[in-house]
């Protein structure tokens, strides 16, 4: 039963989001360097961290799928990656807005974290054409899991490599994220992070429940020997 616990989870997510938004705009002090613009940090960075953890979670679910051969893990992996990719879009857009506000350009190559994230996003974007290209559903699920595991291993390595590519000439622009952040900012940041994590989990559970519901309808149809409705996805794993 995928829907079990969805209601309290979503309530917790909403509450946490409301709390962190209030903290961002009424509690957190203004940043000395960037001023009001710094507030974007509280939506951009938690989204990014959550998305990255989500990608790694997709890899972990994929390992479970490969070891148990239980298709439900493939569905978990697929949905985890799906929600993380959507979060990724939000990360890149908010990152671009923040770049434009801070430095006047919609994109900067100076920010190693943003660039690393772009690369990770590009990789996971290929998950869909990759799945689509494999026709046999069994094989598709297996190969997708291999992809998710490989990509999950890729994430930390990629961040390390891009950070190293940063020439020592460019100052670390995200110094506010490292040590030296005042307590109130840290609290606000942590609340936002928890809120995004809860949101991610809620959306994953939500999508799994929806998939499960359509899976149950298909099961009903089969039990009644009724014609199966056309138009099922070639790539989204079925949940039953």
């Amino acid at each position: 039963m995928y829907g079990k616990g969805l209601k309290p989870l979503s309530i917790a997510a909403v509450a946490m989001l409301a709390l962190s938004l209030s903290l961002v705009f009424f509690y957190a002090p203004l940043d000395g360097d960037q001023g009001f613009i710094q507030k974007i940090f509280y939506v951009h960075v938690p989204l990014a961290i959550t998305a990255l953890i989500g990608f790694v979670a997709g890899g972990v679910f994929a390992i479970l799928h490969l070891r148990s051969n239980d298709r439900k893990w493939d569905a978990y992996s697929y949905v985890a990656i799906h929600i993380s990719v959507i979060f990724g879009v939000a990360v890149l857009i908010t990152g671009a807005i923040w770049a434009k506000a801070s430095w006047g350009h919609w994109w900067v190559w100076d920010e190693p974290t943003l660039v690393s994230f772009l690369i990770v996003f590009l990789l996971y974007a290929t998950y869909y054409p990759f799945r689509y290209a494999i026709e046999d559903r069994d094989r598709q699920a297996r190969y997708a899991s291999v992809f998710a595991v490989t990509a999950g291993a890729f994430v930390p390595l990629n961040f390390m490599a891009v950070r190293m590519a940063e020439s020592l000439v460019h100052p670390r622009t995200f110094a506010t994220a490292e040590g030296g952040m005042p307590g109130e900012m840290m609290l606000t940041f942590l609340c936002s992070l928890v809120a995004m994590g809860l949101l991610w989990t809620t959306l994953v559970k939500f999508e799994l429940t929806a998939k499960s519901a359509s899976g149950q309808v298909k099961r009903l149809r089969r039990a009644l020997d009724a014609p199966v409705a056309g138009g099922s996805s070639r790539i989204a794993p079925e949940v039953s």
Partner: protein
Amino acid sequence: MTPSRTAFAAILGKDLRSELRTLQSLPAMALFAVTTFVIFRFGLDRTSLSGSLASGVLWATLLFAAVLGINRLFVSEREEGGFDAIRLAPIDRTVLFAAKASALVVYLAALELVTVPIFAIFFLEDAAGLGPLVAVLLLTDLGLAATGTLISSMAVNSRARDLLVPLVLLPLSIPLMIAATGATEPLLSLGGPSYDRFGTWLMVLGLYDLIFGLVGYAVFDFLLED
């Protein structure tokens, strides 16, 4: 149970002999690379390159040429039932991964043996940086071989075969390229080779090779299931 070493040698030998006899990938890869050098000469409007530009042109070309070879790595297995033979044989299936990846390293090394001197002749002022470049080339080849073999073995069983390898492999190879170009750039700088962070970049390459070698080794078995 056939010992893995025998199986490994057998598969590797078969691949290398087959390539030597038919020469289907290597000449194409080399020609592609040299032609790409010419395109870069005109595209960049430069007749001599150094530093980051030289490093970039060299590595971008090698990467794209490698993709050509990687695309074809498992084609013979697929068309002539090699996968089924491996499944039936009493050997550890990851031997196929190790053998194919090793074959790919040999192809890439052969490619570089031909194209890097040509690159030097076309664009470089002095060849002093080429010696230490060998270490960079070797470590990068290992990394490309690990991920390339993994992706290629999946792509060969799909519909958009030639499309999947470039699509998925390129983002995966970015850290490799970052480290490779990072190490190569000071080697090819105008004033003579310098070793700025050379050891660090080699370590990053080694780390990539280790991680993806292990990942490939761990998951390859699942790819061959029916």
